[in-house]
């Protein structure tokens, strides 16, 4: 366990270098945040078009609290394959999971920063005020849904790394699915029953429900805790699945000799 932690930290350092290739603090604020914020406003304005304050608030919470969440991480799972460092990670005595989690998770910290910042700016722009405690709770749940989404991206990333060319497509799919089916744009109940089942085992769905209850001020504490618990459960499920498959998928490359072929 101690080794895993040390490997994770080194992986995180590699991830930090990846991050620095894309962004420095100026381009992150001026470029990335500009893109994320304008994108959120593009969608939130639908609430104005529809002339419904409830819809406006619904979209604001959904899009702001998930702003940037899910981006880059799936693609990052394939970068070791493209860099040629992958075979070394696979033959190393330790599981590949710690190194992979480290390199990928830098993006999760980016999501937390994007979503929290976006949430503050968007709600301020529409003059929507909350109590300090509601805001603090919201931030905590945002962190939670970033973590659960991260575990999902590890699982998807492991699959995508079998065919690294599909990495960006898989990454886009993850963000699209969250936007469409996890209660960001419309309530889960809008979708057909068979689809709702999948919505409930995806990250974000329960976390957003919890945030909506916290912000409405009328939610019972037990209800809020129930949703938080469900989100944690979903996250643990994806963590378990990803731990289960990353090494197997990595070994598959060793078994059929395709490990160095991208």
């Amino acid at each position, binding site marked *: 366990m101690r080794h895993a932690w040390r490997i994770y930290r080194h992986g995180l350092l590699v991830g930090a270098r990846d991050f620095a290739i894309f962004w420095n603090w100026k381009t992150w604020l001026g470029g*990335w945040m500009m893109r994320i914020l304008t994108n959120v406003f593009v969608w939130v304005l639908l609430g104005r078009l529809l002339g419904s304050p409830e819809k406006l608030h619904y979209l604001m919470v959904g899009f702001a609290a998930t702003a940037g969440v899910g981006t880059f991480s799936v693609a990052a799972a394939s970068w070791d394959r493209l860099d040629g460092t992958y075979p070394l990670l696979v033959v190393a005595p330790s599981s590949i999971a710690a190194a992979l989690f480290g390199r990928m998770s830098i993006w999760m910290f980016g999501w937390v920063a994007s979503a929290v910042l976006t949430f503050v700016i968007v709600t301020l722009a529409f003059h929507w005020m909350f109590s300090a405690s509601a805001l603090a709770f919201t931030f905590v749940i945002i962190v939670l849904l970033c973590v659960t989404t991260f575990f999902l991206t590890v699982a998807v990333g492991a699959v995508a790394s079998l065919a690294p060319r599909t990495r*960006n497509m898989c990454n886009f799919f993850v963000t699209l699915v969250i936007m469409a089916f996890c209660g960001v744009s419309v309530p889960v109940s809008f979708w057909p029953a068979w689809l709702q089942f999948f919505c409930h085992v995806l990250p974000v769905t329960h976390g957003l429900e919890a945030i909506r209850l916290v912000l409405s001020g009328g939610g019972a504490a037990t209800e809020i805790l129930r949703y938080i618990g469900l989100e944690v459960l979903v996250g643990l499920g994806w963590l378990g699945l990803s731990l289960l498959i990353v090494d197997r998928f990595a070994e598959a490359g060793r078994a059929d000799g395709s490990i160095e072929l991208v």
Partner: protein
Amino acid sequence: MSPSAVLRIIRATALTQARLFFRNSQEWTRVLMMPLQALVAMAILVQAGRADLAGYALTAALLFTIGDMGFFVGSEVVAGDRSQQVLELLTAAPTPYFVVLVTRTLFVASVGLIGFAESWLIARFVFGVPVAVHHPWVLAGALLMTVFAAGATAVLTAALFSLARSTRTLQNAVNGPFYLLGGVLVPAAFLPAWLKVLSPFVFFFWAASLVRDSFAVAEPVDIALRLGTLAALGLAGALLGGLVLRRMLDHLRLNGRLGLA
């Protein structure tokens, strides 16, 4: 050069670009993925009981796709040529590089039209909302001019991006503000007044309003004027792009960095 020679070059360039595009799975899958955003827009509208606004979702999906093709694929043409060491050969050839570049960005932008077909199918078969085109000629004109404006603007961005070190950062940053200002999903009229004044300078603004009007029952007004403005914005982008491209190529030649990416 004779006009027939230019036409031959345009044809060969377009064919080459088509081959490059369809061989690159990152690029052609992008064009199929982008229109899926219509799913989100349609869901919001249908859930709010406003399926009558489905045209807005289609307009957004179309412009997201064309915009994405222009900003991400078209804008990378010069940088790509440079990193693949073909920029030196292309600029040394008697054909002006500008002609080659315009042909390629226009091709890429026109592929974005798939966004329209795909989002129409999503509205029809996922949500059961058949979106009627009440003014097909307006739509045809709008699509044609939008492709022209997007391709022409990509000439400018391709020229600008070729000098920058971190193209991806710029690409990521520019499209968002343009979509917002252009009112691609929600008309610019819903923007705050201080932002709205900038909208007419963005080609998406004219493109979005024309495409939306072609779905409306009401007879659209000032069509020629609006199509003309869209074309003029595209032309301005291409001319400016041509100037920037020349300056940029001169600059790289002077430094001897044309082939060093």
